[in-house]
Structures are given as C-alpha cells and as structure tokens.
C-alpha cells in the first residue's frame, strides 16, 4: 500500500535528457517555470507546450508516466480553472444565481490549467531523468555561493541525501509495524477521525523510536568513516559541463527569446 508512493521517482536511462548535467537541467527548469508565467497569449503558450512535448519525447520516458504524475494535482487544476472562470470580470457568457461566467474567465481558466499541467509535467520530467543524488549535488553546487553568507549548504544537501536514502526503509518499516499491530488486534479502518488518529499511536511511537535509533547508529557509522562536514571533501562523481550542456544553454536562450517575441506578436 505505502510502497506505491513514488516520491521523486527516478527512471534510469541513457537519453539526452538523462545525460545532461543536473545543474543545466535544474536551471533550465527554473527558466521554463519563469517563462510559463511570463508567457501571454496563445502563441507563447503553444511554444511552451511544444517545448514540453519535445523534452518528453527526448527523454524517452513513457507519456503514461507523465500523465500519472499529473494525477495528484488534478483537483488543484480544476479548482484553479473554475475560480478563474467565475471571478474574472468581462463579457458575460452565462450567468446563474450569483455566478457569472465571462469569456475572459474561460480564457484565463484554460490558460491557468495549462500552465499548472505543464509546470508539473516538466518538473516531474526532471525527477524522472535525474537521480536524486545528482539532483542534490546540483542543488549544493548552485547554492554554493551562499556558503559565503554562512548558509549551511553542504549540511542541507547531506540531509537531503540521507532523507532520500531512508524514505524507502522507513516506508517498509511502517508497513511492518502496522501489520504487527494489526496482528495484535489494532484496527486502523473503522471509527471516526479521532479514533483513527488515536489508533495510529501504536504505529507512530515505534516508528519514531526506530527512526531515532537509526539516526544514532548512522551518525556513529558516518563518524567512523571519517565524516567531518563539508570541509576538504572530494567527490567520486564530479559534475562536468559538456558540449551537450552548451547546446542546451543555447536552446534555453532561444526559448526565452521566442516567448518574449511571441508575447509581443499576440499583443
């Protein structure tokens, strides 16, 4: 049951998208998201959509998986679209009770929905094609200027890595503890909200106890392997920009220029 959760799931592969430096991908994603909000008008949106489609095709990730990533946000998409339809002033199309739907509202609602869908699709494309550890490395690198301001960037990245490492372990453990308590007659499925919340105590207490024990043991094991913070650390896999990344950078610039240009056209 809990094993089905796919948090930042990564699908190994050899596509162009997989081979790009994670920093390039991360920066490109940020640029893409910004441009989604800069984009105005059908032409700009079309460019964003085409880009998303091309990226997905290049990654060789099954479109089915991209659709799956959209499932959890469907409610938000519909909610946003409906709100936009109802609350945008303009030329009235239909009205009932205190609501009225305007042409501008429909237009805004559709664009808002498209915007969120593309945002989620491209973001999940990044996690699908980038291993969590590469992503953590990229974040650490990109944030490294902040080290000068005494921001604990390395520690933050280390925490992310350890969290990613232990999520599957703790999920498995939760499943196991739940089964063990069910075997002692615990009932997680009936009763009102309060009763159900209370029924979780026999699961949460052992889970916390175990998480603390693991943290304690891990800390000792890390010290035994000479961990002493980020200072003087070298890396097995050093991130390196390649020609591929240079090409990607050029394409990103073209994309930005394209959106800006098309914005003017449709105005």
């Amino acid at each position, binding site marked *: 049951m809990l094993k089905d959760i796919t948090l930042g799931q990564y699908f190994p592969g050899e596509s162009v998208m997989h081979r790009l430096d994670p920093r390039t991908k991360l920066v490109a994603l940020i640029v893409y998201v910004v441009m989604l909000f800069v984009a105005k008008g059908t032409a700009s949106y079309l460019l964003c959509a085409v880009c998303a489609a091309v990226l997905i095709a290049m990654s060789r990730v099954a479109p089915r998986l991209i659709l799956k990533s959209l499932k959890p946000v469907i409610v938000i998409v519909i909610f946003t679209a409906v709100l936009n339809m109802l609350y945008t002033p303009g030329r009235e199309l239909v009205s009932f009770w205190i609501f009225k739907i305007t042409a501008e509202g429909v237009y805004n609602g559709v664009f808002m929905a498209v915007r969120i869908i593309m945002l989620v699709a491209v973001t999940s494309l990044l996690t699908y094609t980038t291993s969590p*550890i590469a992503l953590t490395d990229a974040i650490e690198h990109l944030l490294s200027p902040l080290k000068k301001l005494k921001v604990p960037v390395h520690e933050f990245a280390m925490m992310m890595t350890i969290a990613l490492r232990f999520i599957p372990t703790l999920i498995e453990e939760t499943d196991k503890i739940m089964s063990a308590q069910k075997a002692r007659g615990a009932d997680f499925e009936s009763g009102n909200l309060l009763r159900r919340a209370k029924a979780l105590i026999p699961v949460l207490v052992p889970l916390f106890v175990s998480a603390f024990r693991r943290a304690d043991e891990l800390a*000792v094991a890390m010290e035994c*392997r*000479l961990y002493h913070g980020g200072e003087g650390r070298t*890396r*097995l896999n050093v991130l390196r920009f390649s020609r591929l990344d240079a090409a990607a950078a050029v394409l990103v610039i073209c994309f930005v220029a394209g959106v800006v240009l098309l914005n003017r056209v449709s105005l």
Partner: protein
Amino acid sequence: MPEIIKTESLCFSYDEEEGAQLVLSDIGLSVEAGDFVAVLGHNGSGKSTLAKHFNVILLPTSGAVYVDGMNTADAERLFAIRGTAGMVFQNPDNQIVATVVEEDVAFACENMGVPQAEIRARVDAALEAVGMTEYARHAPHLLSGGQKQRVAIAGVLAMEPKILVMDEPTAMLDPSGRAEVMNAVKKLNREKGLTVVLITHHMDEAAQARRVVVMERGKVVMDGTPEDVFSQVERVRELSLAVPQTVELEYALNAHGANLSLRDLSVEDCAREIMKYLGAD
C-alpha cells in the same frame, strides 16, 4: 609478527563515578598483524564495548589502547586511527549513507579528500574485493542483507585500513547472507593480509577464525586457537555458549569410553576421527 592492536589493563565503565560497574575490567590483549581473531561471548559480556575501543567510539576509563602504535586517547590521531581500523556494524541499513552503492562506498574517501581519480580506483577495487562490482549502480535498499553488509565492508575497505573490526556483522542475516559475509571476510584476511577482529555470538563463525577470544562479564576468560577453545567442552558450556556439533558428538562418544580428540571442527575431520573409532576394536 608485529602487534597491531594492544590494550593495556583496559577498564571501561559507562558511569564516571568511582566504584561503578565495570563493563570491561583489566583487559590486556594483543592482536598480531594479519591475524583473524573472533571475540565470542553472549550479550552483555562486553565484547561490543571492547570493539568500540579499537575505533575510538569509546575511550578507556583507565588503561590504554594502541592501534598500529597510536594511543587512542591522542585526539590528534583520531582520523588516522579510524582510517587504520575500519568498523562494520550490525545493522546494514543503518550504516549506508548514499542512495547508490558506489556513492556509498566512496563516502569515506570523499571525507578523506582523496583525489577523484583515485577514489574511482579505490571504489572499484573495494567492490571487486567483496564481489559486488555488478551492483555498483544499484540502490542499496533493494539489496539482500548479505549484499548490504558486503557494501558496508567495501565502504570501509575504500579507506584502505589495516584492520577490519566487525561488530556482530551477521547477527541480522539469514544463513546464506552470513556465509556471503564470512567468505568475503576470510578472503580479505587470506589474500590481502587484512587483520580481522570479528565480534560474534555464533560459535560456528568463531570456529572459522584463527584465534578465539571468549569474553564473560568484561573479562577475557579463554583465548587460543578454535581447537584449543572448543575442545574444553565443559568450560565453554559453563559460559552458556555452544560448541560445534562435531565436537559435541565426539564429547558424547567420549562419555561412553571413546577417546576422540575433540579438536575436529570440520565435518571431514570429524567423520575421519569417527571412522577410526568405529574401526579400532
């Protein structure tokens, strides 16, 4: 052979107070370089506490511990000692840091600031040494217990230590996982000359070592080759430990007038000894 670990009247107590219960009392132990020593004892005998002194996880309350000539109380030598005596723990899940096997094996080298090209070479060699090369890019949580524990060993090997200290590395594994780990460790000891200190409560693992040290209530109570130790059947049983079934069988026959050696730890030797017994009228 030079001694690589030495303890001098080592005493330890978790409580600082005078007269507190000693977990280790007056241990004088010396381990030769290249040896394979099993420390056997039941829970609470102090065997894990002793192991933690070889890696400066704990410091003696009184007495001293030397690792490759370095006094563990010397704070300046902390990293040098930990890099000399690598430690593997009981629960494989709680000592793997990274989400990819090779990244985890590289962890110690990265901390030591080893140049990148050399890390690569060390990681490859360490994975090769424990037979995990083909899993280099795998996620650790999907491996079996025995495989995880071999990854943990590789992570320590990458530091290129002289000593491998293992604190009950097989306690949570199934028989095939235990065999995997024991075979890897024996090979490292034999082929690379790595000194091994194995803390265990499995007498069959101790029987595979070259020297067995038995602990009880914080003291070393027996010390010798596995044959020397396990042939003292009554003494071992008094310590509520078991002897291998081969020895147990010979002992049972001796109770009825046979005169078997009690030193046959392998099935082959035991079968031959019994054949002699059956033949000699």
